[in-house]
């Protein structure tokens, strides 16, 4: 590449060069951060809930008399189990991608001095552990006598299962089985560890905390009623849920089905991340518009320069430049301008990321986004300049002899 003479010539067109380099710098900064945002959102929408989403649905009832919760549970459990295709019905306080039911800060000592984490408790009745399809990686699944009465939002004393992620956070490098933790007066001991179980909602608190959840076996009752976990074969699940919602009118006329919360887990996941997908789509649009504007800027300037230097190109051709030499000249020129813009753009990208971190709780931009952004802009630059450069290469040498 003939860098020195190209740089020398660019030095004579400083203003236009600087303006286009600034445009590229801005594109680089926005591109890197927008891509990072999209990737973060995309990663979030793909979180592993740890449960058999395709086979599960939630049914939530409201408006019933709390005093008759035991009776309601009994009627609903027995009534819904009669629906053809229903594999299981159990009581649970929350489901992944549904509403939070029991979120609390835990401590690793009874005195409440050693803070552990803020976690979500899945309090669930018999059959729910199997229905969820949780994968046990250590300890044991809940036994019949683990299901303790729930007097408040959780049982007073319970053998629970924690996720591997939470165990590693609370007791890094140690065996979590048998370990204890507390929420005020409530006492828990770890009887088992599951591979994954995402918190209700969809990962608030950052990617590292998505699986800080605890499975607590509990006896259905006044404090554990109204939300039911239905399991059926994936193909039959939508029909089973429809039938279940219809059956409630007959078996629990004293309750109202919460239609927003009564959906398949696949549907709940879809709806939960709807905004994230919309935002990713909007950012993609912004990126596309920005790249288009940048490309048009490059095309415009390159076309102007080709027109302006037509005679100069003819002179170069007369002096022995091949068409390829002329093409390479404009490509090199573009490469140098874009490289300058990228160098500045990387600094801007970091600055923008710091701003977003400070004001919008964005994570630190990983370094590998910078070369990705640079390559994208180099390619865009080369693509944008190709048309004008080919037009330049087609200028015949005889132009050198013509007067302007």
């Amino acid at each position, binding site marked *: 590449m003939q860098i020195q003479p190209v740089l020398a010539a660019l030095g004579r067109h400083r203003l236009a060069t600087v303006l286009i380099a600034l445009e590229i710098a801005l594109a680089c900064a926005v591109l890197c951060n927008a891509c990072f945002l999209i990737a973060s959102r995309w990663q979030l929408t793909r979180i592993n809930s740890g449960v058999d989403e395709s086979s599960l649905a939630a049914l939530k009832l409201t408006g019933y008399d709390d005093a008759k919760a035991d009776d309601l549970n009994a009627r609903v459990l027995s009534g819904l189990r009669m629906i053809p295709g229903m594999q299981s019905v159990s009581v649970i306080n929350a489901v992944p991608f549904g509403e939070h039911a029991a979120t609390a800060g835990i401590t690793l000592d009874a005195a409440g001095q050693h803070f552990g984490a803020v976690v979500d408790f899945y309090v669930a009745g018999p059959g729910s552990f199997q229905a969820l399809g949780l994968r046990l990686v250590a300890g044991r699944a809940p036994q019949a006598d683990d299901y303790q009465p729930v007097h408040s939002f959780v049982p007073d004393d319970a053998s629970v299962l924690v996720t591997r992620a939470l165990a590693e956070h609370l007791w890094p490098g140690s065996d979590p089985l048998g370990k204890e933790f507390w929420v005020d007066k409530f006492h828990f001991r770890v009887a088992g560890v599951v591979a994954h179980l995402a918190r209700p909602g969809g990962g608030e608190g950052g990617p590292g905390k998505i699986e800080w959840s605890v499975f607590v076996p509990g006896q259905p009752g006044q404090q554990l009623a109204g939300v039911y976990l239905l399991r059926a074969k994936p193909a039959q699940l939508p029909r089973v849920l429809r039938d279940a919602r219809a059956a409630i009118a007959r078996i629990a006329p004293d309750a109202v089905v919460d239609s927003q919360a009564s959906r398949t887990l696949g549907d709940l996941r879809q709806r939960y991340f709807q905004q994230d997908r919309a935002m990713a789509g909007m950012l993609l649009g912004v990126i596309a518009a920005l790249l288009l504007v940048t490309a048009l800027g490059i095309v415009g300037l390159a076309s102007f320069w080709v027109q302006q230097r037509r005679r100069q190109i003819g002179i170069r051709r007369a002096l022995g430049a091949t068409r390829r030499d002329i093409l390479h000249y404009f490509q090199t020129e573009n490469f140098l301008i874009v490289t300058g813009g990228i160098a500045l753009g990387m600094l801007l990208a970091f600055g923008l990321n710091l701003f977003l971190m400070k004001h919008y709780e964005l994570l630190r931009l990983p370094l590998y986004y910078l070369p990705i952004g640079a390559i994208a802009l180099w390619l865009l630059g080369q693509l944008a300049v190709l048309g004008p450069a080919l037009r330049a290469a087609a200028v015949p040498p005889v132009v*050198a002899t013509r007067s302007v």
Partner: protein
Amino acid sequence: MLKMNHLSKVYRTEVVETYALRDFNIDVKEGEFVAVTGPSGSGKTTFLTIAGLLETFSGGEYYLDGIEVSNLNDNARSKIRNEKIGFIFQAFNLIPDLNVYDNIEVPLRYRGMKTAERKQRIMDALERVGLSSRARHYPAELSGGQQQRVAIARALAGSPRLLLADEPTGNLDTQMARGVLELIEDIHRGGATIVMVTHDPELAARAQRNVHIIDGQVVDLAEEPRFHAHAAEAAHEYR
């Protein structure tokens, strides 16, 4: 060195065909200094652009240094222009964005010459045209005569075997023109073949041989006594 047989150049539009050169024949021997003269629109510049492989021709044959050039592709023509031909244009044709040094370097870079050799050739050429001190100046900072000397240095640096000059003194005053012509004669004494297009009989008289073009054809000078006599007188005055 340069031989054209029955060469023609036709410019075609949808409605008309215009012959810029018709049945054009010329034979310039190696080391000759030939002036090509003729009135405006006679085809002098067309002849020069074809001779310099800047343009293709419509019919006939053209041998340059023994090579029939009509079938050469664009790359081969560029290579010949770069290695064998030097150009001096009336409008100097320097690149305004590059300084004197970089301007002279342009054809040498296209030749793929090493930096050290390029530098040596450029400094030698600048020394020869008396502009060593202006290497970092831009064309706009030089007078017309100096710009033409830079153009000559650019041609010189490439050691061309054929130098094509198109009205090389057309934009210069008499004194500057004299200096430029002396440089061209110097290059000729160095062994290069010179073909100079001019409408100026005084300049033409300095060449070894004159070729006169009228209406795209070479005509016999013996049939143009008035021009011949005037040219001889002008040449005497110029010296």
